[in-house]
Every structure is written in C-alpha cells, then in structure tokens.
C-alpha cells in the first residue's frame, strides 16, 4: 500500500468522523496529489505560456496607442481559456476515480469510514482547488505582463475572466468526474474526456455553423443552441461582463440583448451551474452503484 493511502487513513482517523471533515480530508489529499502530478504541471505551464504569449504580443501591438476597450487581448485570452481550461479540467476529472479504481486505491479508500458521496465530493473539491490554483496563476501572470507592457486592459476584465474561467473549469471537472465514474479503466476515461473536449470545443460549434448555413436556423434557436454549450455560455458571459452587452456578437447577440435584457447573466450562469451540478450528481449516483473494482 502506498504512503499516500496510509496518510489518508491516518488523516481520516485523526479527524472527527463528520462528513465535512471527511470531505475536506479527502480534498486535501486530492489537491496535494494533483499539484504533484506531472500532467497537471504540464497543463499549468501550457496555460501560462500561451496566456503570456497572447498578452505579450497583443499588448506590444497596441500598448503604444493607449487604447482600451474590448480588443484582441481579451479575445485572445478568452480563446486560450476556451482551449486549455476544458482540456485540463476534463482530463483531470477523468483520471480522478478511474485511476484510483485501476490501482486498487478505491477499494482501500472505501474500506475507510467514508461514504461514497464523501469520496466524490472530496475528490471534486480537491481537484477544483488545483484547477483554481492553475487558472489564477496563469491569468495573474498575464495581468502582470499586461500591466508591465502598458496595460490597455481593465483590471475588472481580468478578474471577471478569472472568476468565469473557474466556473468553466468546475463544470468541465464535473463532466470529467462523471466520465471517470462510468469508465472501468483510466485510459478509457481520459480518452473519453479528450473526445468530449473535442466535441464541446469544435464539433458542436461547427455543427451549429453548418446547421445555420444549411437549415437557415432562426436567430433564437441559434442563440439557445449555443447557450447549451458551457464553453459558449462562458464566452458570452465573459463578453457580457466586460462590455455589459453581447452586441459585439452580431445579430444573434443583439437579439439576445433585446429579448432577455437583464436575465442574460442569469441564463449564462444557469447554463454553467447546470453543467456543474447535473454531471456531479450523476457521478455520485453512478459511483454509488458501481463496485469499486
């Protein structure tokens, strides 16, 4: 049995057997393991490098003009977040349970006085903490670079972007954990996670585009279909928070502004929170019914 497992048992015994403390203990372990994992370090570095690159290049091009506003900097950062954060969260989540199951760790864990709900929540919280660390580090470094470069970006923009990226990460982590609960092997889980990432990042948008062009999809359906994708909900919310409007998104954006007014942020929020809560609940249900091996 690994050192981690021993530590976990001791930690579980040392604390009061309440649910919250169980969850927290599991979360701490998960957080520490995640921060030590090589894959996670790789994702963090990739996110950091891409974000810094975008910030550096775009600030270098516009800094001298001192123009603020919604520009390529923000667009570029949104783009990076849309690419990297879901991949990171999905693959991290996908490894969460399936990996432990494969290593026999799960059997041991469930032999402890913890419920399956606590295990899922603990893992979720721990991984969420690791993702938060990664996102805040990346965007924090980007803000610093932008500030040094002449800073035509509002601080508010970066804070909103960080907060919304965390929400996006949480939703994708939920999906990842669900995949992990379903899969028998870690490799299958991670593969499925990557496939889902591809589907959410590219396939669904391309499908919507093709549908709009081929079937003359009306604006309303276009907007609602797009809203269902958590990545697009994140993107629209980010734009809305920066500009107080998504009219930058053309006729469909204008339609949404005119039709839903103040309800728009709530709609984006509902979409993202839905993607956090529903897969996580499903993961708990599935995990509770499956054997730990």
């Amino acid at each position, binding site marked *: 049995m690994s050192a981690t497992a021993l530590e976990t048992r*001791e930690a579980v015994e040392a604390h009061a057997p309440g649910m919250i403390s169980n969850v927290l203990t599991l979360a701490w372990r998960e957080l520490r393991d995640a921060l030590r994992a090589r894959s996670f370090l790789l994702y963090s570095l990739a996110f950091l490098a891409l974000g810094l690159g975008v910030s550096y290049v775009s600030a270098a091009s516009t800094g001298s003009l001192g123009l603020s506003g919604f520009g390529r900097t923000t667009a570029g950062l949104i783009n990076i977040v849309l690419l990297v954060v879901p991949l990171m969260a999905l693959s991290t989540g996908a490894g969460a349970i399936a990996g432990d199951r494969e290593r026999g760790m799960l059997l041991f864990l469930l032999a402890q006085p913890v419920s399956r709900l606590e295990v899922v929540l603990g893992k979720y919280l721990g991984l969420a903490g690791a993702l*938060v660390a990664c996102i805040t580090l990346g965007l924090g470094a980007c803000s610093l670079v932008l*500030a040094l470069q002449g800073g035509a970006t509002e601080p508010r923009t970066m804070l909103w972007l960080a907060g919304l990226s965390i929400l996006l990460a949480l939703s994708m982590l939920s999906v990842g954990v669900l995949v992990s609960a379903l899969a028998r092997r870690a490799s299958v889980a991670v593969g499925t996670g990557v496939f889902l990432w591809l589907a959410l990042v590219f396939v669904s948008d391309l499908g919507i585009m093709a549908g709009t062009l081929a079937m003359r999809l009306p604006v309303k359906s276009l907007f609602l279909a797009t809203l269902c994708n958590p990545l697009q909900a994140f993107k629209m919310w980010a734009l809305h928070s920066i500009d107080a409007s998504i*009219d930058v998104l053309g006729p*469909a954006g204008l339609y949404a502004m005119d039709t839903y007014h103040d309800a728009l942020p709530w709609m984006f929020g509902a979409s993202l929170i839905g993607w956090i809560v529903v897969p996580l609940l499903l993961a708990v249900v599935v995990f509770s019914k499956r054997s730990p091996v």
Partner: protein
Amino acid sequence: MNATRSILATASRLGVIGACMVGFGSLRLAPALAQDTMPPPSEGPGVRDAAGVALNAGVIGRLINAAKPGDTILVPAGAYREHIRVDRPLSLIAQGRVVIDGMGSGDIVEIAAPNVTFRGFIVRDTGIDLDKENAAIRVLADHAVIENNTLEDILFGIDLKQAPDAIVRGNFIGGKDLDIARRGDGLRLWRSDRALVERNTIHDGRDAILWYSQNVTVRNNTSRRCRYGFHLMYSDDVLIENNELTHNSVGVYLMYSKGVALRGNRLLANRGPSGYGIGLKETDQFSITDNLIAGNRAGVYLDGSPFTNLKPGDISHNTIACNDVGLTFLPSVKGNVIAANNFVDNIEQVCVSGRGELTGNEFAAKDRGNFWTDYAGYDADRDGIGDFAHESVTLFENLLDREPKLRLLLFSPAQQAIEFVGRAIPAIRPEPKFFDPAPLTSPVRVATNSSPAPSRLALAISGLGLASVSSLVYLASRAFSLTIRRKGTVA
C-alpha cells in the same frame, strides 16, 4: 428694490436704450419679478404664432416691442414664462440666470430679423409637436449670433431656417426624455450657408443636421446619446473638425454631400442600431483624416462613396480601433484611397457587406500602406514597411460577411479551426478581400489625443491578487502534508 436697481444699473450702463423703455421696464418688471411669474400669455395682445400662442406678451416681449433697431437689451435675472419674437435687429443678453419657460407649448424664441444676438439665456420646455417642429430658438434671418445658451427639455433646439452667416456657439442643448422616434433635432440648419457651429454640447436629441447648407464649419462640439451626432444632407464644402461624438447611434452621417472634410474628430462607442463612427452615403470628394474612431459597431461605413470619380475618397491618418468592424464597404464601393491609418484590434478589420472584393479601392498611397495589428509579416530591411503585402484571406470572416448571425460564434476555437482549414485547403481558400501592398510595421501618429488608459497599477495588483490565490492553494496543500506527517509521528 433689488430688481429695479438692476434695471436702472443696466440702463445707466447702456445709453442706447431709450428712457421711455427704461421707465416701461422698471415699472412693469418689478412686480412681475417679485412674483417670479407672469400673467398667462393668452391674455396678451398682439402677435400670435402658428399654434395660436401669443408672442411678445410678456416682459421680454414688451422690451423688444419698445426697442429700436440696434439696441442692446440686458434682461435681468429671473424666470419668464413667455414666447418671444425678435422682429428687429437687437442684442438680447441675459444678466445672470434668465430662464425663458415655454411651459410645454409651441416654439419659445423666434428670431425674424437679421443681425440679432441672443446670448446667455436658459430656454426650456417647448411643445412636443413634431409636425410643428416646436423649437427653443428658431432663426429665420441672417447673421444671427446664438451664444452660450442652455436649452433644456426641448423638442428642437436651435433651428436655423434660411438663416445664413449665423454663429451658433457654446450652447448646451439637451433634448426631452422621449423615445428616439419622437425627439426633435438638437440643431438644424436649413439652407443656412456659411454658418459657424462651435463649442456646443448636444445630448439626448435626434440629430444635429445640416440640410442644403454650404460652407458650414462645425468644430469643437460634443454630442452624446443622440441619433446622429452630425448629419449632412445635400450640404457641400462642410468642415467638421475636432468634435467629440460618443454614444450616438451614428457619429457623423454624410449623405448626398460633396467636399466634406472630417478632421481630428473623436468618434467613440457609437453603437446604435446602425452604429457607425462615420457613415457615408453617396458622398463625394470627401476627406477623413486624423480622426480617432474607436469602439463603434462599424468604424467607417461606405455606401456609394465617392459618388463620382472626380476625386478619390481620402481616408488617411486615422486610428480605427476596437470597432466590431473597422471599415464596412458595400460591394459596389470603389475609388477610395485608404493609407497611413492604424487598424488596431478591430474584431473584423475590413468587411465587404454581402460578398465581393475591394479591388476598386487602394490601400496604399505613395508606397505607404496602413498599420494593421493582424499583419503577420516582418520587416527585414527596417524601412518601416513590411516585406510582404497584407492581404486578408479569412474563411470565417467570409462566412460572417455572408451570414452575420454566425458572429455569435466569434472568439471560439472553432473559428480558428475554420481559418486553418481555409488556409490549408486551397480548394476552399477564399479570394483575398483586399490587398495592402505596403503595410506599415509601426503605428502612425494621429493628431487626436487618445483616451486615458486604465490604471496599470490596479491591473498589476489584480494580477498579484490572482497569483496569490494560487500560491495560497499551493501552501494549503503543503500545510496539509505537514499536518499529516506530524500526526503520523505522534501516532
């Protein structure tokens, strides 16, 4: 009594005002000012305007009736509820805070004689009758000077009708709180040549519009939350200079005019339903130089301009930045020379509405093109001009130009995927939209001052804040390991 004394002081300062008038004024004014009101205008005798509102029935009206051409009338501070018509050449100058209240009916001041000066008044509350075009100040004669007035709660503000050689300066014009379709024009010139419009502020109106007025100069004005900041209809040889036009539906809309110069204006955040910084419709021989055009839905919109081939349309030395679309062309537009501009971070730099190319337009003059933030080439010989032409070949933008709804998917990775496919597969590679043979590698200096940049310190602090969250998480995880280890040793 205070009011009487002020009248007498006025009179002694100005010998031009007849003694009879002073007597008249001081006798009638004093009680009226004490009450701060006047008898309702309908009781007054004499002239009525088209709507049946009595004119010159109040205090100022009687002063006018009593004055001789060329007199100067200093109107003492107070509130006057009346509608006046200036029917002889006079100077009306407000002494202190003079409010002329139209009480929500008709026009308020009508200037029917040449060489009238009207300065320093507060004119408020016109009617809201769009058919009658209720205006705060209507000028029907030449050489009027309308200066430093505040017009508030008005349908039309200053309406020059066949009033050439007027000066409209330093007025503050605020519209009524009405739906845009029911508002009037803050400023209107109708067949009023050689007018000078400067240092006015116009807000919440419909348009500031010039109809059939030649050789007008419009400078240093501010316009916000109107429909069109400035709107030219069939008005030639107009200079529009150093104005700041923000948050209107359209900043400047030029229609069917020629010889118009737009210079040094700041056109920001004009995002109404049309949402152009500058719109040009069948306008000829224009020049657009040294403007800052930023944050609009479309920076410059060109429709049938230039209208003839007498002179190419000149769009140079502008900064066109952070607009949804930098330049929008209708497909038939040709004959523009677009050079030495900064195209900075527009989401789409140039758009051909519908489909088409811009082969009829030049994107460089004298071997110098524009500065494009999306230029991907380099400058090996360091002459300030990129070694490769800048051409816009983007499949996704082509899709957008054809199906604007798809802008909803802007900024998503799918966009890059499509761009990549468009570049990689020649069969679906779109034709270049435009071609800049000599893109500049550093921005051009533009004469307008740029907007204040947001605080770098605040940005740095938020960056540090974000980064510290991540270090907290990391430290927390370390602390946990230590706790476990300590607990372990105790056990």
